[in-house]
């Protein structure tokens, strides 16, 4: 039982989350007349979790060690890498709570706000486990926990047809993807006799004849992960669901669940398919499956598809959906380098992506609150009538494009540094040209906000004080990290450690 106690110590954030979830549900039932305080309870729970996540930084070790597996490998690997992503998820969640405060859509369903937060907590819990679990079964289950919550959340407001539609599409697409993944997991289990990534890794180190089966299983598993990070060709749900879901949830999906997906992908590949990491930081892949080529093709496909599809989108949410697909492509590039440098780039990029993407969604939300539309034509002239919103949006979009002096540039810089270091020049050029293409649709928004004359007087979207603060909280780091990014890089660098057996 000492083992269990140690394990519980390691998963304190998750425990806190679970307790907060239960408290939320209970409170929701008790105070069913007045639900004003529910969001604050949620916020409190998140902050507390956040504190424990921070407190957990530096902690490292396996939790829930299984007696079957030599008594030292467990279901969860707690390490700095996981903590980094958990921190990102918590930050996103806290911001989403604030988003929800000002979202008109969410304000309309105040009577169900308890359930709303309960589901969000379900998602967070799922993501936390995704981030640190090293057992395929647990991975699958926590993925499902996250998915089930998000299916409901996508259709949560039930205000418009598209809400329900988003939920249904998400559900069906998600179910089939996770079904494929589960089948893939079962094949891996058949090949290796285990669902634990470390054990699988050890099994794969010895000569193996069943490479085709392994490849098939890998692709099926990747279908499940790829759908979470919306990489091509598993991205088709993304635009529809993003457009249909409430904005807060869209923003949340685009950042948090993607973060979880990436953490999972990195941990899965690093733990399972890397034989060793050389002193320079390059990962030596096991010669059982050519992850590198697969990921190169997929990442190029993803970013190209995302960028080109985004070009003529008139719905801002939909455009940002395609943009998030494109960013998934860039992020995958960090992985295809298969080195610590590439991983560092992903970590940095993701933190920055969090800020700028959430910022863009926040502005879309604020504008939708006022105008009830996400159509680009309804943005005409908004830059002039609503200067603060306009400037902030420009900064976010420029950052998404990856131009200095915004943080987006730093993200791209580290990515390309990693690529050039690995001498993957062609890929780097394709990615760079992609970012030139992306400029076109990002600037198109700017154009509509500033350059196009509105047919009638553009409404002034004047954010209230709390929204202003929220915006500033997002804008300031996007600018500051653009000129002084050392803290972020230092933090990311200290989070590179993925728990290994050695």
């Amino acid at each position, binding site marked *: 039982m000492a083992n269990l106690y140690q394990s519980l110590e390691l998963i304190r954030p998750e425990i806190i989350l679970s307790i907060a979830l239960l408290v939320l549900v209970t409170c929701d039932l008790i105070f069913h007349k007045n639900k004003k305080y529910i969001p604050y309870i949620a916020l409190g729970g998140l902050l507390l979790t956040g504190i424990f996540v921070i407190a957990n930084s530096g902690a490292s070790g396996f939790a829930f060690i299984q007696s*079957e597996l030599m008594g030292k490998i467990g279901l969860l690997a707690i390490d700095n890498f996981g903590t980094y992503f958990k921190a990102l998820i918590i930050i996103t969640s806290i911001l989403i709570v604030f988003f929800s405060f000002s979202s008109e859509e969410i304000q309309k369903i105040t009577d169900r706000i308890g359930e709303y937060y309960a589901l969000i907590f379900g998602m967070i819990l799922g993501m936390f486990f995704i981030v640190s679990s090293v057992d395929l*079964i647990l991975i*699958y*289950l926590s993925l*499902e926990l996250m998915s*089930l919550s998000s*299916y*409901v959340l996508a*259709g949560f407001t*039930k205000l418009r*047809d*598209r809400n*329900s*539609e*988003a*939920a*249904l*599409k998400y*559900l*069906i697409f998600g*179910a*089939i993807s996770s*079904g*494929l993944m*589960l*089948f893939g*997991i*079962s*094949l891996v*289990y*058949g090949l290796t*006799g*285990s*669902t634990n990534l470390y054990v699988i890794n050890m099994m794969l180190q010895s000569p193996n004849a069943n490479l085709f089966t392994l490849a098939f299983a890998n692709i099926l598993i990747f279908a499940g992960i790829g759908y979470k990070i919306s990489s091509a060709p598993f991205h088709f749900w993304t*635009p*529809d*669901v993003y*457009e*249909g879901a409430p904005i807060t949830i869209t923003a949340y999906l685009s950042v948090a669940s993607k973060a979880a997906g990436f953490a999972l992908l990195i941990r899965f590949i690093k733990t399972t398919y890397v034989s060793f990491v050389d002193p320079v930081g390059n990962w030596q892949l096991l010669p059982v499956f050519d992850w590198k080529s697969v990921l190169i093709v997929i990442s190029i496909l993803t970013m190209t598809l995302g960028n080109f*599809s985004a070009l003529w*989108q008139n719905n801002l949410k*939909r455009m940002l959906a395609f943009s998030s697909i494109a960013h998934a492509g860039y992020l995958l590039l960090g992985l295809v380098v298969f080195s610590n440098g590439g991983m560092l780039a992903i970590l940095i990029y993701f933190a920055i992506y969090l800020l700028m993407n959430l910022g863009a969604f926040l502005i879309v939300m604020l504008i939708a609150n006022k105008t009830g539309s996400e159509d680009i034509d309804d943005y005409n002239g908004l830059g002039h009538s609503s200067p603060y919103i306009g400037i902030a949006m420009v900064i976010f979009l420029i950052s998404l494009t990856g131009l200095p002096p915004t943080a987006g540039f730093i993200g791209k810089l580290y990515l390309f540094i990693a690529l050039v270091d690995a001498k993957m020049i062609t890929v780097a050029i394709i990615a760079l040209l992609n970012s030139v293409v992306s400029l076109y649709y990002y600037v198109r928004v700017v154009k509509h906000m500033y350059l196009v004359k509105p047919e009638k007087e553009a409404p002034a979207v004047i954010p209230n004080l709390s929204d202003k603060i929220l915006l500033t909280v997002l804008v300031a780091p996007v600018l500051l990290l653009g000129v002084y990014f050392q803290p972020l890089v230092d933090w990311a660098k200290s989070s590179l450690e993925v728990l290994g057996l050695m």
Partner: protein
Amino acid sequence: MLQVGLTHFLTLSAILFSLGVYGVVTRKNAVMVLMGIELILNSANINFIAFARFGNFGYSGQIAALFVIILAAAEAAIALAIVLNIYKTFANVNVDEIDHLKD
């Protein structure tokens, strides 16, 4: 016919899996799509248990199957709730007619 062994079970699961995928892709009725998904999950479960049985992998396969079954129940609950919601808004549950969100 051969002595029934692992391959037989696996073939069964493979066909079940394919039928599940086929069902998901072709059925218009959302509930039937869900049935297809259940088939896929079942096929995976057969795999888990069969591998564990023949490969002497202990009980982890069965545990996995157990969890998947429970999960399937939860998923079915959520899915049907969403389908009901769809029915309320669209007055039908034909997946292919729910295509308002597109380019």
